[in-house]
């Protein structure tokens, strides 16, 4: 089989993995090596679906022994199968990397023969890449649940970031759709990676040449919309993953109909829940950067995120007693709670107000999006001039702000000569 065909098959099989980041680690190339990584990560392109392309995202192989219903690579699915040899995958990565097409390699795999065998194959690839080609760029490796802990450890010593996919948000869903995978089998390597990372950090603090285990941390992903869990359930789970497993990121992937299994939503006319995914990411950002807790964002009365408005606006409307916030006095945490103020603008406000009091004109200069924030802020005790809104009006205004972006059907050019029949 030609390399081109293999690339087509194995990139196609890997594309449903949402994680494509190259962040979390600063490393420059040493003489004799090639490749560096950046703390902020770097997008090298954007595909037609608007997602960032930063790593060469491929599977080692798509031959699989499992039969997970939601997965395009399941054993019972009739698709072309292929496998990269470690050598050709390394050649490919290097030729792309030298031309600045990619930031590194994202290596995942379906389970061929057994988890151990698959992991060994991946280790061989990464060893050639690191030791023969002396590659210092970013490597993201998927840990295969069920593999021997020693093999997972060796994989982690070669990779920068590791991930184990939690796949579905609850164990009943997992039992239903992925009968070969158990929740424990997923969480065990996750805990192992967490412990490996913290141990490696301690060792590096003592001896700077100590081997680094997954220095850019670990992430995970789950599929949203294939099973009936509420947003509250998903967010609580996410928070637990951040708290207990110290993950860098949790990715959500709106379910794409890749299977006609009776256990899954019907494929015809199925719209992937992209807006729900978007709202979940917004809520995820609130958890990670805005000091919110999952219980604040959603509760029993309101188990799902409001599609009309972002979660921070929703929170603000339920807690009007918290507002208005005084720009010139409020602390960082309170500023972060204001809709329209992000981490950057909040930091800029802290810096700018040391020089003198801020007014609305100044806020605009700082880059604060006043169309949302104006309802929740005072500058030196005054609201924005000419602004008078009731509580009902506030909801309407905020919903209207997002409405243009949410207009679902794309306008179509009318045709004079409609299709006959």
């Amino acid at each position, binding site marked *: 089989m030609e390399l081109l065909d293999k690339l087509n098959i194995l990139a196609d099989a890997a594309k449903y993995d949402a994680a494509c980041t190259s962040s979390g680690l600063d490393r420059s190339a040493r003489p004799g*090596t090639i490749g560096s990584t950046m703390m902020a990560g*770097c997008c090298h392109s954007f595909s037609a679906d608007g*997602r960032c392309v*930063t790593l060469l995202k491929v599977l080692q192989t798509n031959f699989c022994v499992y039969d997970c219903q939601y997965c395009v690579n399941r054993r019972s699915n009739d698709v072309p199968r292929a496998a990269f040899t470690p050598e050709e995958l390394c050649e490919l990565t290097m030729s792309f990397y030298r031309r600045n097409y990619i930031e590194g390699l994202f290596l995942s795999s379906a389970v061929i023969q057994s988890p151990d065998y698959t992991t060994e194959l991946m280790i061989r690839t990464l060893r050639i890449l690191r030791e023969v080609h002396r590659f210092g760029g970013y490597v993201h490796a998927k840990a295969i649940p069920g593999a021997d802990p020693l093999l997972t450890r060796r994989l982690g010593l070669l990779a920068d970031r590791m991930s184990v996919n939690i796949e579905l948000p609850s164990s009943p869903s997992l039992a239903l759709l992925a009968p070969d995978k158990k929740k424990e089998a997923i969480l065990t390597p996750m805990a192992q990676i967490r412990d490996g990372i913290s141990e490696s950090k301690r060792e590096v603090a003592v001896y700077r040449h100590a081997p680094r285990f997954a220095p850019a941390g670990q992430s995970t992903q789950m599929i949203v919309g294939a099973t009936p869990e509420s947003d509250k359930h998903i967010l609580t789970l996410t928070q637990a993953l951040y708290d207990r497993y110290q993950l860098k990121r949790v990715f959500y992937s709106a379910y794409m109909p890749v299977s006609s299994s009776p256990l899954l939503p019907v494929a015809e006319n199925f719209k992937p829940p992209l807006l729900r995914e978007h709202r979940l990411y917004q809520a995820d950002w609130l958890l990670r950067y805005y000091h919110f807790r999952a219980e604040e964002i959603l509760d029993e009365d309101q188990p799902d995120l409001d599609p009309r408005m972002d979660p921070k606006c929703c929170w603000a409307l339920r807690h009007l007693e918290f507002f208005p916030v005084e720009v010139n006095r409020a602390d960082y945490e309170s500023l972060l709670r204001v809709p329209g103020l992000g981490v950057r603008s909040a930091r800029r406000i802290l810096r700018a107000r040391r020089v003198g009091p*801020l007014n609305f004109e100044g806020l605009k200069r700082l880059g604060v999006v006043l169309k949302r924030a104006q309802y929740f802020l005072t500058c030196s005790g005054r609201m924005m001039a000419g602004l008078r809104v009731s509580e009902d009006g506030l909801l309407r205004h905020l919903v209207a702000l997002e409405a243009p972006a949410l207009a679902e059907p794309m306008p179509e050019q009318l045709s004079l000569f409609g299709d006959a029949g």
Partner: protein
Amino acid sequence: MPWTQISCQYDGTYPGFLSCVFDCYVNKEEPVEFRTPDDTCCSLYPLRTVVTDQEHAKRVYRSFAKFGAEGQRLAVRAFLTCLPDKELWLWRLIRLGYQLGPKIGQNLTDPVVDKVRKAVWHLEHEAHQYKGFTRFSELDGVLAGEIEPKNRVLPLLRAHFCGRYPQESFVLHDRTHREALFHQPGAGNCAILPVEDFSLGPAGAEELACRKLWRAFYDTIAIEGRYNPKCRMTNMPKRYWAMMTEFQEDYGAALPEVHTLPSGPQ
């Protein structure tokens, strides 16, 4: 007594500009416009021609340390931006900097600081995007690439690409400003030089094969059910596309001759 208003003529380089700052302070003169010898338009203000003096320039450059880390960054980088009348804005920033000292980095609501800060942000943002969107082609063992930036991003890209490919020889050509970054293996073998004419031979078979593989990967990785051209254009504006391998047909040429943008999905 207010300073005399003058029109300042210099050679268009950064040391030249710093010499202007030096001379203006010595003579107590306030420049209201900056010109290079190429500017043909005449001025109503008395013209002062400043001869570049490296020693004076260095003194002014070192004095930027008084502005604090943030202020210093603005004063050094603003000259690379594409801000109209950047010299004048930079002059105002420098005057303000000598008055305020390190506080200038916090004075974000000041119109001058704001203007310069946004221009520098644009420069840094563009440089960051080019870290990803630059494409190299291999020609006889040398990597060659071209970019068409609005700001002068090469000085900002230098550390990145030299740090990434220490063992490679590469050239990165900036079409807009007619200069190129050259690098050869070995520490410190790296320079940005003006380039008048930039052309290369045809691409080899291996290079063409690699481009084909990359295009195949790029087309495959998109999920049809999530097709979202607007999101792609927001993240990667079309002005970058012309230079990117994934949007090119095979010309067999070393680097594509670009006159118009390829017609992507609208």
